[in-house]
């Protein structure tokens, strides 16, 4: 093709630069960054009259969307409603994929997270958090028929369970990205449990389907999930241990907000509200 005149060449280059700049600027249609340090987030929330709460509404009975009202409901939603009531503000819910919750909180798009999220050492190091409002238990569940066939009633320890499964070449199912997966992987590497016999599932439903089809012989989950699925399948719990506590997360250094939320949670625990809510949503008592 013919060579371009310098003027035309310059015009094309400038056009490219402008398009590049537009694309760059497009990346900056962002919500206002975090609050000015002069005013605490607590004051800002009180002033605007609502708190922005992030959750991942795909985890019943903790949080999910009510099919008729379209609202976010569940155990966590009720806990948050109580806290917001105490703060004297309303709630603006934001549904966000679970893995994006913490980056979104850090970016300042949401004020707090309530999403059945466990307080792990890693999260404790990078975020502010409330006092625990609920503690899940980690359970090992198997099919009742399997327990009878193997003569299992209960295991003494998690290690007992792992070594029994290792000896028999049985498979264990876990949900990927959960603390239960970390627990099983950690124990497995200590024991030389074959990693091929640990199956990670993105969703609980396919995991329990495989359990009932005997493709895996045990599932390690939180107790609330196990209770939920006991309605569908004939399950029996063969081991139980405390899991991490569930807390509400906020950015580091929001002391006033943290204190206000803690006060509300302690009141709920003292008045037995949490136990009532647990019963309402069919999860084990705290």
């Amino acid at each position, binding site marked *: 093709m013919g060579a371009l005149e310098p003027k035309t060449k310059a015009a*094309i280059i400038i056009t490219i630069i402008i398009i590049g700049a537009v694309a760059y600027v497009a990346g900056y249609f962002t919500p206002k960054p975090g609050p000015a340090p002069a005013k605490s987030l607590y004051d800002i929330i009180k002033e605007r009259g609502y708190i922005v709460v992030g959750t991942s509404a795909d985890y019943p009975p903790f949080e999910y969307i009510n*099919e008729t009202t379209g609202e976010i409901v569940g155990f966590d939603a009720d806990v948050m409603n109580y806290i917001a009531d105490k703060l004297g503000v309303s709630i603006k819910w934001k549904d966000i994929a679970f893995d*994006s919750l913490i980056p979104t909180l850090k970016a300042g798009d949401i004020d707090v997270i309530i999403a059945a999220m466990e307080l792990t050492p890693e999260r404790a190091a990078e975020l502010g958090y409330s006092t625990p409002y609920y503690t899940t238990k980690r359970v090992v569940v198997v099919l009742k028929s399997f327990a009878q066939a193997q003569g299992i009633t209960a295991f003494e320890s998690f290690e007992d369970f792992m070594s029994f499964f290792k000896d028999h070449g049985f498979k264990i199912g876990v949900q990927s990205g959960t603390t239960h997966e970390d627990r099983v992987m950690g124990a497995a590497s200590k024991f030389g449990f074959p990693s091929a016999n640990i199956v990670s599932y993105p969703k609980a439903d396919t995991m329990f389907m495989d359990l009932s089809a005997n493709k895996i012989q045990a599932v390690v989950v939180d107790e609330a999930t196990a209770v939920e699925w006991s309605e569908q399948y004939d399950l029996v719990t063969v081991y139980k241990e405390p899991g991490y506590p569930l807390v509400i997360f906020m950015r580091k250094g929001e002391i006033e907000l943290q204190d206000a939320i803690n006060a509300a949670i302690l009141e709920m625990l003292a008045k037995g509200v949490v136990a009532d809510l647990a019963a309402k949503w069919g999860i084990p008592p705290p």
Partner: protein
Amino acid sequence: MSASEVAYVLYLSFIFLAKGIPVTLAVTAASISIGFALGLSMAVARVFIGFPISGLVEAYEKFFRGVPDLVIIFLIYFGLPALTGRPIAPFPAISLALGLRSAAYQSQIFRGALEAVTRDQMDAALSVGMRVHQAITHIILPQALRISLPGWASEFAVVIKDSSYAFLLGLMDLMRSAELLRASLLAMGLIEYLIIPYAIAALIYFAFTFPISRYLASWAVRKRVELGL
């Protein structure tokens, strides 16, 4: 499994998924537009300016064609704020990521089309006294864009499908609404129906992509034949 239950689940599917469709379309529109503007400029620059722009464009294409979509999305959503110190919202992040990726492919499509318009046409245009930029905008581009349409249509369909990554950043698109419906079905104990939200989402995606690849592309080929291109 009863007929009334199936009807109810289908009814819910449309209620939930209808909310996701505008978001999916908005992400697609933003991404394809960014990809078009950037891709066309890069193709024109690569063909008509040459060194050193062509090298830069080639490097850009190689990079964005060689990196998985998901990595580009995470690089922008998590990486850009770390670089600039300013957070980026999910919508611009996903649109920019898919747009930048699409630009690499669209640039290739347009470059092929530009090169398919013969050199003689440029010479002819110059010989009747047109400037180079006039020849490009009045002679070369109108033909090249028509030639590129079939390839561009399939790239459009790819962008529609890729928009489903938006759910990873928490945007309420088709995928995310299917996910939320599954959770609601689970809460209602309608476990036999958990596959339905994904199945309906698949049908909706297909309903968007099929006409584009089937009709837009074949129309463009017909048009090309008619015009003798």
